[in-house]
């Protein structure tokens, strides 16, 4: 990555106070295994007619995006790039259920129309009359990271100078039960399963309002630990950093041992003396939750403050100075994503 890229604005809707960074001072904790989003006042952004026509996830995605665009004083971003593992899950489940139960008869097109994964990204374009580059990545735990990588590539190539990048996920009880049986979420003692809405604007323009700089990123499926270290070190070096210059690591640990073991092994081997942070205890787990991580790191860098509850209890190290944060996301010890963000 050769050009400077900044996060100009980022907004979230989760089970924390929506569209706000109140979570930094007044976080909401939960002991439930499944927590839905706390919806903002949609009527502040959408007319009642518009709101009625849209599903919950679509409304959250749109409202978070409208707030980001307003903060940036921008009408049309150059690109809208979306990461979502499951898209409009509720519509998909409803269409599937009625198709099977009604024996493929008497079906309404509405749920099908909303069920494709790109519905959210294209709905954002339709609502904001945006003809720019528009695409959607649906690759499980890497979906958001891939969307971010695409934005960085196009900025690097000079095709765009800003991009709206978002991560969107919803959940319903039946599907949660299935994910729980599969062992992905809902494991005893694990961080809650949540819904994801994160929208952010990346820009190549240095402005005082920017939250942080994205100094580098790398998505890989390494052929063993040596390959992983080589790729990570190459990314850090290109960003003018190395493993000893990292202020803190923000990992995707979720208190499910089958997931955390991969993180622990990596962090203990490569970063034994670096303070580690985690965010899923307050934002929850879902496939594109890594976007909460980037949102969280951007806010910590902007405020120059790491709330105590973000520190990973398994490591008793605290940050003296926060100049950068390395984000780590992984799936099944197979796919890894590293993002280096710096204070401006």
């Amino acid at each position, binding site marked *: 990555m050769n050009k400077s890229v900044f996060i100009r604005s980022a907004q979230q809707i989760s089970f924390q106070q929506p569209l706000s960074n109140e979570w930094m001072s007044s976080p909401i904790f939960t002991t439930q295994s499944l927590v839905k989003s706390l919806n903002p006042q949609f009527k502040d952004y959408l007319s009642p007619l518009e709101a009625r026509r849209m599903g919950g996830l679509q409304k959250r995605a749109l409202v978070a995006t409208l707030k980001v665009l307003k903060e940036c004083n921008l009408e049309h971003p150059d690109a809208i790039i979306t990461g979502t593992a499951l898209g409009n899950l509720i519509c998909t489940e409803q269409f*599937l259920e009625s198709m*099977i139960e009604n024996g493929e008869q008497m079906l309404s097109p509405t749920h*099908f129309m909303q069920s494709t994964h790109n519905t959210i990204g294209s709905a954002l374009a339709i609502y904001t009359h945006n003809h720019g580059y528009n*695409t959607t990545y649906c690759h499980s735990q890497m979906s958001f990271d891939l969307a971010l990588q695409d934005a960085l590539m196009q900025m690097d*190539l000079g095709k765009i100078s800003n991009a709206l990048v978002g991560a969107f996920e919803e959940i319903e009880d039946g599907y949660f039960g*299935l994910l729980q049986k599969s062992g*992905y979420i809902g494991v005893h003692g694990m961080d809650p399963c949540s819904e994801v809405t994160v929208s952010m604007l990346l820009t190549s323009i240095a402005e005082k309002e920017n939250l942080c700089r994205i100094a580098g990123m790398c998505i890989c499926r390494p052929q063993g630990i040596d390959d992983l270290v080589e790729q990570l070190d190459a990314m850090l070096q290109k960003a003018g950093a190395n493993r000893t210059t990292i202020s803190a690591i923000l990992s995707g640990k979720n208190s499910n041992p089958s997931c955390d073991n991969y993180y622990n092994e990596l962090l203990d081997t490569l970063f034994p003396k670096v303070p580690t942070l985690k965010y899923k205890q307050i934002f929850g787990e879902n496939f594109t939750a890594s976007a909460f991580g980037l949102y969280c790191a951007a806010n910590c860098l902007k405020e120059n403050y790491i709330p105590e509850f973000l520190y990973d209890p398994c490591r008793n190290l605290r940050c003296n100075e926060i100049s950068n944060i390395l984000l780590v996301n992984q799936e099944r010890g197979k796919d890894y994503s590293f993002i280096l963000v710096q204070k401006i």
Partner: protein
Amino acid sequence: MKPIYITGAGIISAVGCGVMENIESLKKGETGIGPMHYLRSRHTDIPVGEVKQTNDELAERLNITLPTTFGRGALLGMVALKEALESASILPGQIPKRTHFVSATTVGGMDRRELNYSNEKKCGKWGAEIATYNCGDFTSDIAERFGTFSSVQTVSTACSAATNAIITGANMINCAIADIVVAGGVESLSMFHLNGFNTLMILDREQCKPFDANRAGLNLGEGAAYLILESAESVRKRGVTPIAILSGWGNACDAHHQTASSPNGEGAYRAMKEALEAAGLQPCDIDYINAHGTGTPNNDQSESEAVKRLFGENIPPLSSTKSFTGHTTSASGSIEAVLSIYAALKEQFLPVNLNWNTPMEEGIIPVTSSKSKREIAHIMTNAFGFGGNDSCLILSRSNL
């Protein structure tokens, strides 16, 4: 923009397994669309473009132990990926470093889930894994059959997804993230999307008739295709011969409606224009257009308008190969790129537009004779998706 070399391809569709069979069918004018035979649906009156093999027959081609637990889409993907890798001299288990896999799908593993759906409420871990098998798991299964790619990615923008996967791959090479990207898409037929398109009332009960005044909708198809995209340096280093060049691409959003295209084809026009500009070509340089051409009244009208806006009076020969394969949705972008490369650029013939009889009012007259009036050097392929995700590729003859 540096050119991206295409050094291999693999395909499976209703008109054949492998590049050779597909091109033979195009030459002979034999469609793969017919009565439903493999898909289990009550709507047997709807013609479809099925791959003429059972899941077990597909698995046998891949030496997978029977009965296979893979879904149909994964098997189709593996068959196409195997051919693509072999044609580019990449051996299974020996994927070169900095080789990535970017694959498109929407249906993913839905075909397997819908058959197991009635057991879901009381299923165990395996049943839950089938139910929650997502697009990323699906792509990983296809990739892992052949070794470890440097990254594995899934793009899902409905019917333009495979084209967008190719665009992502090209950008990765241009940004020096990758030396080689295997990019394309895969879609199997499912009850889910057959019923979905049926509720939208855009399925023709007969063979689809793209660009015909009496067109009545599309026929769904299935298949997979992958292209091996490669940097010039990697081509030289590996000593492989390119089959074509990916010289330009464009992606724009119609931003009009979730399932309908705008009357003036704004998104399509922008995607084509951007692709031409990226390739450094003029409209008159394009020798053939493989249209999106679904056969729905809305698409063909909107696409005609966009093509007329960009090309004016001098519209190049244009056809929709969906009259052979059916609309293979998320795979269509790569399937049609492979068909166009081999037919038009390599063998210098124009795939005809089957079932066309009556011109649309102020519409485009598609190709009905496969003989090209001039040498074919540059071609354009269009893929437009739900939500107005419109994309376009320009493919050129390689002089290497």
